[in-house]
Structures are given as structure tokens and as C-alpha cells.
């Protein structure tokens, strides 16, 4: 057999039928649903009197619309959103689909709860009506986002009509400098290859810098690959990934462990496998990255200044600068922020919160600034409370809130006012994303923590020195 990439192995092992040159009928091991991209899919299914093909391969969670106030029980006051949650509950009950409901202690963001409870296993195909499903590549599972028509298709058939992607390998060698994270790395990569630099491609990340990342840091990396347009983002599962899964999936007991390990050991690209495109980056080039514009590729190291862009799409660049109130040549260092948001499927896991606590311990959030921490899930929240992280954050002046997507996309009541500038650990700095007229600067959790203390965007590496 010809040498194959990891991506190709995953697609081949899930191909039910070859439909034509470009398309296969792809089996999907796990389908995650949320309250806002699924109701029309269920309605379509009901209209055609179709059944859910394999309910046990589907799971749903109320994640996007849920308020994050620290009140118990959790109540969704917005009537339309409350209806979405109740419809999801009804649909799940009707079709015998597992649901993490509004008041489930383990409720959280889809892409955080699925791996943390061992639902994501190497070699799976995982889809969800949410673009950040690329996250699961960190465990060697092919994950990607789908639209509502496809949600309906998966419900009815547990398969998708899948157009094959082209293949890209991104090799990152070297060590990430102190004070930088996989968030900074992915922002650097996106800034270099562009917001459509991986459009049409499934990426495989490899290299010594990737191997050295924790599994949670790999989630962050793969999560944001979609911001370069990627249709998937894979990392071949190593011992760290397999340990992560086995610790969380006790059902993979001794009776099947040998077979599982044998299968997972095949999940890598063959030595001579060909990629359509290859990129190489040096991890030692990474600095704390911050976005200056309204597209995730408009990012610079905190030590740089907003670039002067001429030529093609000058108009779009000028529009972005008008929106963010910045000009070429300006530094982001010292730029005042009115809000800090730490959360989202990109950066709301326990390691992220530990990094934030490390920076803020014994310090205070700047006056006239609102700083929120929204843990990614009930389990993350409980762990942070048990480790004393929550208290560190509360003592520093952060709001410690309930889990959900929250201000990443501001579909609930966590919305910024026009003109407010936010240091955010999220994944998109689109115009109006966190509120109409609000300005988002994407950065790592440590950088957002530093901004919260300083009241302005600042280099977390300098902050450390100041207090030493």
C-alpha cells in the first residue's frame, strides 16, 4: 500500500462508500450538538419522519446561550434562549440522546467537556455544528465543524457526505521561550500563513515543539487552526495523548486495552507520505502575540508595532484599523483595556487557569476594569476551586463565573458595550463579536492576566520582572 498520511488513514478507516472522485460517505463516531445549531436539524428530521440512526453516538450540551452569573440554579432569562434550551432537552429525550443540561454539574463548553470525560479517543471522526471542532486533532481524532443541514444528515445516517481535504504539514521545532504558550504559537502561525492560509487543508502539526506541548496546550493549537481556514488539525497521538485518554476512559478496560493501543500506534503519517504543502516554524521565534485588527491573522508580538500594509486589501486593513482605533506604527503595549475575558473553548481549561493564577497571585486587578473568568466546564470549575485557584482569582478582583461560551461570542448576556476594549483569551476578534462596536485583542491567558493587573495591554514577561 502507498505511504499514507495520518489524515488519509483516518478518512480511509471511516469511509463507508466512495461517492465520486472528491467525496466519500464518512462514518462519524461522535456527534456533539448545542442548542442553537441543532433545532432546525431536528425539525427537518421530524418533518420527514426520519429517526436518529445511532443515538448512542450523539451527545448534546447547552453551551452558547447559557448565562454565567454565579447564581444557582441556573436560569436562562431570555425567553428565546430558554426556548432553545427546552427544545434541545425535548429533542434529546425524544431520541434518547445524552444531554448535559443547563443545571448539570458537568455542563460546559462542548469542546472542553467531550475530551475531559474521555469521549474523544484517538482515531475517531468527531463532528459538531461548531467550527472549533478541530480541537480534537490534539488527540489524533479528526474533528471538524459542520452546518445545520449536515447536523440533520448525521442524525439521520451517522455519516456525512465528505469532500476530501488537501493536506498540509506544519513542523515546529525548537523550544517555546519562557512566557509564551501554544496560544502565542498558533497566533504566530496564523499571522504568517493568513486567515485563509490553510483553507481547504487538513493540517498535521509535528516537530519537537509540538511534542513538548501538554495535551491541553495542543487543544488550544488545534482549536485555532480553523482561524487559518483549516478543515482539520491533527497531531499524531503519543504517550501523553494516550495517557490523557486512558485516564479519562475507564471503559477501555483490560479486555480491550491491548487492541486499542495497537490501533492507536498506527495513527501517524507513514515515513514517505506526501503532503500538498509543508511549512516550518521555529518555536524560538515565538513571543507573546496580540491581535491588533479584526481578523485573527492580524497579530503581532507585543514587542512589535502595528504594521503598515499596502497594496491588495488595503481597504480592509484600513477598515480594521478604523474599527480598533489603531494606526500603523503604534505599539499595543500600554493600550488601556476596560475589560478582560478569560474563557472559551480555546483557553478555559485547568492549565490555562493555573497560568492566570500564577500571574495574579497576591496582586490586584486594576481599578475601573472588569475582569471575568469563565471556566470551560463544571469539572474545570470544581478543580480550580479545589486547587485554590478560584480563591486566588477572586482575591485578585476577578469575577469567578459559571461555565459556558459566554463572551467569546456574546450570545448570552455577557456582552461588551460599544467602544469597550477587551483583552481576551478567545479565538475571534471579528467586528462586533463580543458586542457591537467592542474591540477584541486576542492573547494568551497569562497575557490577559497581565492586562488585568496593569489596566492595559502589557508584556507579561516584564510584569514578572517588575514584581520579582
Amino acid at each position, binding site marked *: 500500500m502507498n505511504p499514507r498520511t495520518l489524515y488519509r488513514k483516518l478518512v480511509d478507516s471511516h469511509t*463507508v462508500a466512495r461517492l*465520486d472522485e*472528491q467525496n466519500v*460517505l464518512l*462514518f462519524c463516531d*461522535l*456527534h456533539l450538538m448545542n442548542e442553537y445549531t441543532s*433545532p*432546525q436539524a431536528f*425539525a427537518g428530521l421530524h418533518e*420527514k419522519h*426520519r429517526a436518529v440512526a*445511532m*443515538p*448512542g*453516538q450523539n*451527545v448534546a450540551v447547552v453551551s452558547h446561550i447559557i448565562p454565567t452569573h454565579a447564581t444557582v440554579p441556573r436560569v436562562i432569562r*431570555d425567553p*428565546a434562549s430558554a426556548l*432553545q434550551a427546552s*427544545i434541545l432537552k425535548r429533542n434529546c429525550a425524544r431520541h*434518547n*440522546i*445524552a*444531554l448535559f443540561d443547563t443545571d448539570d454539574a*458537568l455542563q460546559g463548553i462542548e469542546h472542553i467537556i467531550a475530551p475531559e470525560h474521555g469521549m474523544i*479517543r484517538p*482515531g*475517531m471522526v468527531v463532528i459538531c*455544528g*461548531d*467550527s472549533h471542532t478541530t480541537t480534537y486533532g490534539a488527540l489524533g481524532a479528526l474533528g471538524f*465543524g*459542520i*452546518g445545520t*443541514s*449536515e447536523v440533520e444528515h448525521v442524525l*439521520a*445516517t*451517522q*455519516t456525512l457526505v465528505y469532500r476530501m481535504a488537501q493536506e498540509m504539514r506544519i513542523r515546529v521545532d525548537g523550544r517555546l521561550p519562557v512566557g509564551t504558550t501554544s496560544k502565542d504559537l498558533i497566533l504566530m502561525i496564523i499571522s504568517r500563513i493568513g*486567515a*485563509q492560509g490553510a*483553507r*481547504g487543508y487538513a493540517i498535521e502539526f509535528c516537530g519537537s515543539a509540538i511534542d513538548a506541548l501538554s495535551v491541553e496546550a495542543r487543544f488550544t493549537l488545534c482549536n485555532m487552526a480553523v482561524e487559518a481556514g483549516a478543515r482539520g488539525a491533527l497531531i499524531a497521538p503519543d504517550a501523553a495523548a494516550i495517557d490523557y485518554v486512558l485516564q479519562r476512559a475507564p*471503559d477501555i478496560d483490560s479486555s*480491550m486495552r491491548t*487492541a486499542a493501543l495497537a*490501533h492507536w500506534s498506527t495513527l501517524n503519517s507513514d515515513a514517505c507520505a506526501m503532503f500538498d504543502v509543508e511549512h516550518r516554524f521555529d518555536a524560538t521565534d515565538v513571543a507573546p502575540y496580540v491581535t491588533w485588527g479584526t*481578523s485573527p491573522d492580524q497579530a503581532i508580538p507585543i514587542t512589535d508595532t502595528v504594521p503598515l500594509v499596502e497594496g491588495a*486589501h488595503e*481597504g*480592509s486593513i484600513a477598515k480594521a484599523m478604523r474599527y480598533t482605533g489603531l494606526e500603523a506604527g503604534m505599539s499595543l503595549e500600554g493600550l488601556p483595556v476596560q475589560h478582560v475575558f478569560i474563557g472559551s473553548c480555546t483557553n478555559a481549561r485547568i492549565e490555562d487557569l493555573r497560568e492566570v493564577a500564577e500571574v495574579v497571585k497576591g496582586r490586584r486587578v486594576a481599578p475601573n476594569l472588569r475582569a471575568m473568568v469563565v471556566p470551560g466546564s463544571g469539572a474545570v470549575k470544581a478543580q480550580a476551586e479545589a486547587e485554590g485557584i478560584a480563591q486566588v482569582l477572586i482575591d485578585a478582583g476577578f469575577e469567578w463565573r459559571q461555565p459556558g461560551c459566554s463572551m467569546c461570542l*456574546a*450570545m448570552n448576556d455577557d456582552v461588551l458595550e460599544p467602544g469597550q476594549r477587551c483583552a481576551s483569551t478567545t479565538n*475571534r476578534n*471579528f*467586528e*462586533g463579536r463580543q458586542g*457591537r462596536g467592542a474591540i477584541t485583542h486576542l492573547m494568551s491567558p497569562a497575557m490577559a492576566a497581565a492586562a488585568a493587573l496593569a489596566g492595559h495591554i502589557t508584556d507579561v514577561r516584564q510584569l514578572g520582572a517588575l514584581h520579582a
Partner: protein
Amino acid sequence: MRDKHLIEGIAAPLDIANLDTDQIMPKQFLRGIDKEGLDKGLLWDLRFDGEGRERAEFVLNRPEFVDTSVLVCGPNFGCGSSREHAVWGLQQYGIEAVIAPGFGEIFYSNAMNNGLLAVMLPMADAAALLAQACDSAVPLRIEIDILERVVRAGGQESSFALSDRHQRMLLDGLDMIGASLTHASDIADFTRRHWAQQPWVRDVARRTKQRLERR
């Protein structure tokens, strides 16, 4: 009635790179349980100011563009969120085709699954067409031939790539789920084999939730 393989009408230029689905359909319009009323939310922040007043200068608000049925756009149209509401909103507003040098991948699939034609032109052709639409004294009229896979405007003609499958879906309105269900026995055979080889993925969602509830 027009021929089914022809889309003909006024083309409005939107010279914006990376026009994401958050901008095409903002969050406040995603709270429904059906697909209704999304024409209202289309490109909301571009069409209306903070007080909800129409922005007179925005192309779709100009009287000569009231019958727009085609958008000519910059690169990476529809990037970002998977929300299919963006496609539903475009269609409800009366848009039948969007022309761009490239589309967000999920948006492209969503468009095809709903019969909204996403025309991917080579970069140079797309840029020329956008310039033509921006510079035209009167709204540019465009004809798109799905059968021939060409865009015609102002005496110019450009070819675009469109897979046979998507072409059939646009022309015949293929029921994709119905078509896939004809593979039901293939799916059943596949699943039997797959679960014999990888029993740890069978019922993974249900079994995990049950385990968590027993804790």
C-alpha cells in the same frame, strides 16, 4: 420564470476581505428554533447604525440596489463560525449567488446544501469583477450559468470551478439525506466491522454519560 440553470440580476459589490459569518448574521439573530426572519439580521451592523437607522451609504441600502440578487465579494467570504443562519439569511434577503475568490469551508458546504450558489472565481477574475462592480455608474448586471459554469458581466466571461455533485444539487435539488439513506445497508455493514475492530467507540456518548451519572 427564468431557466433553472441561469441566475441573472443586479450584483452588489462588498469589497471586504474575510467577511465572517458573525458579520453576515450577528449573534442576536441566532436565538430562534426555526429558520424564519433571518433576512432582517443579514449584515446588520453594515446595514444599520447603532440606533437601528439605515446607513444610507451602504450599498444594499441604495435604492438602485434594492433588487440585488448577487453579491460580489472579497476573499475568504463566510469564514469563521459554522452558523448556517448566514446562508438562510442571504437567501431570505433575495441573494441567489455569492461570487468571491474563496469561501470559508463550512460556509461553502452550507451554501451548496441550501441551493445558494457560491461561485469561486480565480483571484484575478474575482478582483476584476469586483472592481467592475465598484466602478460601474449603474448597478452591474450579472448572469451566472450553472450548466456552463461561467459568469458573464459587461461583455466579459469568467469560468468557475463547480463539482459535478454540487452542480447536480443546484440544478436538481438533490435530497442528500435521502440519497445517503440508500446506502443504509453499507452503513450497517461498515458499523458492524468498525465496532468489531474498535469496540471502545461504540455507544461512546451514551456510555460516558451513564458512567458520569453513576458517580
